[in-house]
């Protein structure tokens, strides 16, 4: 019996799908059986990010209306053993799926796999309710921006009211140089508001853009930067205690020179 984890954020564009693709791949690389589920029905993109777009034949919608079995709808990732994708339909919209239907599918997947990662759509409407319907735990993704943090806070409240209490936070796209200049919130500022467990900080990494466009999760090609952070998050999900590296080291240095030059702070 595996774990169903929903990856959600409230705000769009903070990196949910990229997190799902990379963390899912990292878990599969350490020999876990993983299914990633795209719950963003009508606006699918997890298959694109994972480079599996051309191989999608059936979607979760086909499973729900009975035109495919669940097993047949799963797309195998050829690069890594034990990683499968359940794609979302592009033709339908979020209201065509009921939370119970999504729940049934995830519970079936959970029986055969170690991890079911559900990629939630942005927003707090039915798509969100579908995505969380089967989840027992959640990864909340935010960027260090006031608006994203505000939405993450709202989402945490909603998850708690859905009776999900294991909620971990991922801070994505942290730029240590901007933090040092005081132009970006640091992890401490974010945690001060959200006050939940921090499971990882992903530094801003321009390689992500290329890897997303190529459909090759960064974790296949790199061990440093964002890829390293994804790998560490997957190990923490597995229960390993690992310190979160301090991305401020380089920032302290800048602040020191800033002081000497008589700038702010």
């Amino acid at each position, binding site marked *: 019996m595996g774990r169903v984890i929903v990856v959600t954020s409230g705000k769009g564009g903070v990196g949910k799908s990229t997190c799902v693709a990379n963390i899912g791949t990292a878990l599969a690389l350490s020999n876990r059986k993983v299914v990633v589920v795209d719950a963003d029905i009508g606006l699918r993109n997890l298959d694109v990010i994972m480079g599996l777009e051309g191989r999608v034949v059936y979607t979760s919608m086909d499973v729900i209306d009975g035109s495919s079995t669940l097993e047949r709808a799963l797309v195998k990732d050829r690069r890594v053993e034990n990683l499968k994708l359940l794609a979302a339909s592009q033709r339908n919209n979020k209201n065509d799926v009921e939370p119970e239907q999504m729940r049934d599918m995830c519970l079936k997947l959970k029986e055969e796999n170690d991890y079911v990662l559900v990629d939630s759509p942005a927003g707090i409407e039915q798509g969100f309710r579908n995505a969380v319907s089967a989840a027992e735990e959640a990864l909340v993704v935010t960027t260090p921006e006031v608006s994203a943090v*505000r939405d993450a*806070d*709202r989402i945490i409240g909603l998850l708690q009211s859905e009776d999900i209490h294991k909620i971990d936070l991922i801070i994505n796209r942290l730029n240590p140089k901007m933090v040092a200049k005081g132009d970006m919130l640091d992890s401490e500022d974010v945690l*001060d*508001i959200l*006050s939940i467990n921090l499971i990882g900080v992903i530094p801003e990494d321009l390689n992500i853009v290329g890897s997303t466009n190529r459909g090759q999760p960064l974790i296949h090609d790199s061990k440093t930067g964002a890829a390293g952070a994804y790998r560490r998050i997957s190990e923490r999900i597995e229960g390993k205690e690992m310190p979160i590296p301090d991305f401020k080291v380089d920032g302290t240095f800048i602040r020191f020179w800033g002081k000497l030059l008589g700038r702010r702070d």
Partner: protein
Amino acid sequence: MNNSWIKMNDESYVPVELKGYRDGLRLIIDSDASIAEIESAIKQRLANLGNSLAGTMVRIEQQNQSLSPQDISHFYSLMQQEYGLESLNAGDEIITMSRLTSSSTEKPIQGIPADSPGASVYNEPFSADKEKAELIRYTLRSGQMERFLEGNIIVLGDVNPGAEVTASGDIIVLGNLRGIAHAGALGNIAAAVVAMNMEPTQLRIGNVITRPPARKRRRKPMMEVARIKQGNVIVEDFEEF
């Protein structure tokens, strides 16, 4: 350290008064005022409360029976349509103050009179009437709202940006106050807001709505109290209180 906050509206005398009871609100009308005066007073009274009263029951009371049943039902429908308040007793709308006080053993929830200098539950814990308080044991996150119109609210956690607490009495936040707090929501301008770390988006006391002046974020949060002094919301260190 005194901080005069930026006032966003003016309060003045209004011929209606709101009180909170377990079964809902009572709107007490000074019947000497004209219908138009009462109507604008109701609007003024309720407008500041925004939508925080939607779904609450309300009952109209008047000091003498000079208002016609048509007027009364007009006021009920006004309150329902504009602010979502529900009529507490649609059939039996007219209750005079004398009848109510003789038949009711319930005491209204009383705030501290605004004009009594220094009078507060904190300075006189034994002589002051006991008051009810609602205890909230969790952090209020964005979009969440707590409302208690029978007394005070104590939050054992934070009030995050985008969250809202409303009480007819005082509000005490044993954590960070970063959202909106509305103390004295039924018009008690002697109500206070106390927080371990006072950084609200907006602070409302009685009818006065304020937002904090732009100030530098302090390194060390300290317990502070906000209350109305000479018509302005003043935030002070808690020990000076």
